[in-house]
């Protein structure tokens, strides 16, 4: 009686690189994720490796994240960010001495943690985070998959095959560039799937992808084993579906582990608590207060006013993480036992999460993961496996076409298409048509400047398509930034289009756009010529 578990971490941030600014508020999203999730994950891998604890994880690193993590500019900015944070932590160590022993304990913890993160980044990893993930892929511990180019929500592109192709092909190319081989799997942004998308994936050589549970439940044939075995589509791409139980246990707002009262409170940060003059050098240069990453309070009780939260204790929180890891391990064991006796065949449990849940949002999430992985060591009921290992061993598989779906609220497309953000789509569709028009018009023309202009048009289009902007506009945080981003990409695109139509490219302006929206250096816009549906 045994089964497999695919522990999947989806690492993604939209492209928020702003070389035109020395410091830019949204770039902190990346620094926070690096400091609290990506580097701690690598540190966890290294600990497990050193102690000979076997582990298998699957991760998607999205192309915008690949581009940002490999950028010298972002690496330098991250170091500077950490330098300032260490300076702040040093001040906090002094300051909290007279405040409370618990705060002082945490201040000292942060100081040594930040120093260690920076040291690992500089010395052990030589700033090359992607290289570190790649190394663990080559060792067989981590399987890396790609994602569609800018995390665009594909179901809303269905009517433009060339746009779907561009998202997939460019996502595959980015992976090849950074990881030196072809990706076997692809994570669809937001698990957004539409009927026929599997054909595009097959065309790009993708062997497997992931969908939400109901994509199997409402498929054209009913899946004999529910979501607990992968299926294959008629175009011969394997599909894995999310296990609803694992998701609920880990990230439900109401019953999930991260809501435990002992865990660190995300929203109470000294960036907001300390007096303005003191904190000013460590928040956004415009004076906008932001999270610094130094937090002294615990959740205490979810409904409690932020000002009434109690002081956090990391040892107490680590205990909670251990308890939760044991609970999760117990539940997975029971689930596997139950499923395998029911199915008479090894169940495969797919548990995908946003990577940034672990460490960034749920501060103790990495301890939890590590503890869970350690618990798996001395037993044989639940085994971690990668999707490739699973499909390579399959003998017989059910053929199913999954149902159109996503993992967003209510399971379909309304998070990315509703009264707040629907204004985006007429522009994006027009951009796709204009992109194709220009790619066709200048097909075979060898003019370096026109080539650069076409490349930049493709970049602006892809960046405007990031599902993140529509998502942020729906949820209501950082709305101004997201709206601005969409509008800027549309405006810049149309500007270049007008220039090309007039036959005069403004080189200086183009250089500026290339600098500020410089994703995918070697992008091939000719993909927009492939307008036909896959046969």
């Amino acid at each position, binding site marked *: 009686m045994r089964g497999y578990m695919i522990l999947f971490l989806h690492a993604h941030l939209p492209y928020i690189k702003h070389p035109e600014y020395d410091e830019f508020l949204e770039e902190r999203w990346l620094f926070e994720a690096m400091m609290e999730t990506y580097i701690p994950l690598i540190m966890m891998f290294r600990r497990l490796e050193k102690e000979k604890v076997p582990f298998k994880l699957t991760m998607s690193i999205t192309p915008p994240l690949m581009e940002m993590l490999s950028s010298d500019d972002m690496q330098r900015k991250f170091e500077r960010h950490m330098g300032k944070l260490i300076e702040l932590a040093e001040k906090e160590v002094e300051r909290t001495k007279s405040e409370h022993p618990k705060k002082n304990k945490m201040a000292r913890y942060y100081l040594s943690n930040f120093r260690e993160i920076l040291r690992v980044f500089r010395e052990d990893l030589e700033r090359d985070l992607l290289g570190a993930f790649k190394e663990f892929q080559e060792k067989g511990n981590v399987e890396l998959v790609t994602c569609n180019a800018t995390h665009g929500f594909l179901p809303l592109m269905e009517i433009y095959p060339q746009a779907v192709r561009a998202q997939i092909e460019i996502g595959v190319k980015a992976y090849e560039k950074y990881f030196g081989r072809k990706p076997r799997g692809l994570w669809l942004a937001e698990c957004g799937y539409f009927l026929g998308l599997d054909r595009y994936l097959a065309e790009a050589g993708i062997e497997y992808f992931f969908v939400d549970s109901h994509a199997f439940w409402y498929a054209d044939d009913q899946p004999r084993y529910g979501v607990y075995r992968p299926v294959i589509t008629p175009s011969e791409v394997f599909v894995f579906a999310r296990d609803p139980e694992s998701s609920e246990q880990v990230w439900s707002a109401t019953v999930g582990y991260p*809501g435990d009262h002992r865990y660190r409170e995300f929203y109470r940060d000294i960036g907001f608590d300390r007096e303005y003059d003191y904190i000013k050098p460590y928040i956004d240069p415009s004076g906008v207060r932001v999270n610094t990453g130094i937090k002294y309070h615990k959740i205490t009780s979810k409904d409690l006013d932020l000002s009434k939260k109690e002081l956090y204790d990391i040892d107490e929180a680590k205990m909670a993480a251990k308890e939760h890891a044991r609970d999760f391990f117990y539940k997975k064991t029971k689930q596997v036992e139950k499923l395998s006796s029911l199915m008479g065949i090894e169940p495969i449990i797919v548990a995908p999460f946003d990577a940034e849940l672990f460490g960034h949002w749920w501060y103790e999430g990495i301890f939890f993961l590590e503890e869970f992985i350690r618990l798996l060591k001395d037993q044989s009921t639940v085994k971690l496996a990668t999707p490739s290992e699973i499909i390579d061993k399959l003998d017989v598989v059910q053929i199913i076409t999954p149902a159109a779906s996503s993992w967003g609220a209510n399971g379909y497309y309304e998070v990315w298409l509703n009264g707040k953000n629907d204004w985006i*789509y007429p522009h994006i569709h027009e951009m796709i048509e204009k992109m194709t028009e220009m790619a066709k018009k200048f097909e075979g023309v060898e003019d370096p400047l026109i080539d650069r202009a076409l490349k930049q048009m493709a970049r602006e289009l892809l960046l405007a398509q990031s599902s993140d902007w529509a998502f942020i506009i729906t949820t209501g945080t950082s709305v101004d930034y997201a709206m601005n981003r969409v509008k800027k990409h549309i405006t810049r695109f149309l500007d270049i289009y007008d220039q090309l139509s007039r036959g005069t490219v403004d080189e200086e302006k183009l250089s500026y756009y290339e600098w500020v929206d410089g994703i995918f250096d070697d992008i091939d816009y000719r993909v927009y010529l492939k307008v036909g549906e896959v046969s």
Partner: protein
Amino acid sequence: MKRKEEILAWLDTNPRIQDLKKFAKQLGVRLRKSMKKREVIRAIKEFLKKETLEARSSATSPVAKVEEREVEEVKELPKTYNKDKLVLLPVNPNWLFVYWDMSPETRRIIESLEPGSSVVLRVHDVTYIIFDGKNSHRTFEAGVDVRYTSNYYINVPMPNADYLAELGYKTPYGEFVPLMRSNVARTPPNSPSPSNRERWYDLRKRRKSVSPSKGVIVKPVERVRVSSPGKGVEYSGGGAFLWESVRSGGIL
């Protein structure tokens, strides 16, 4: 109040009365029309004293608005691309989104319709058929004022069905004249398939087979939408709470 200090500092810089009043209004401070500058400042200060940690709106400070960091001007986006376009997108199993744009010629046709005509949007259920203009299973119609509207959300009866829209007008005699036709959009399904077959693929022998289904062994427990009085609809779903905080980078 997260930028209390900033606001207090700003109040000390002798701002204009108009700016003070505007800002007070943004904050939600109640003012009387006759108030002098001194009184407005006092009212703002009083208000700030009452503020708690919780009020963390970033839209209220006159000092450091996020948008002010932007240097490059964002132009108004085009209102039309002057092309005939009718696009239908699925939203969920029961809703479609349709938007349209028009060429100057089409606009002229609509502007010069004879009295008694009306512009209408038609939605056809074209599941498993090739639409020839009149063979749809069902046809739905809604009036449109194209001067003020360029999109609709359409409530349709069938999940897992193909729909197609037409924008056109009705003559005074009730005849429908289509001006634009959309793509076909399929609503996503929301219930298990009635299919009773199973297809299997033997990967070793590379052989496919079809057989009658022996039934589903692991039955799903499907999610259901719930609501309770006083609580709004949450946009969580897939990733529950973390969507908002993580995807937006944890910035409030």
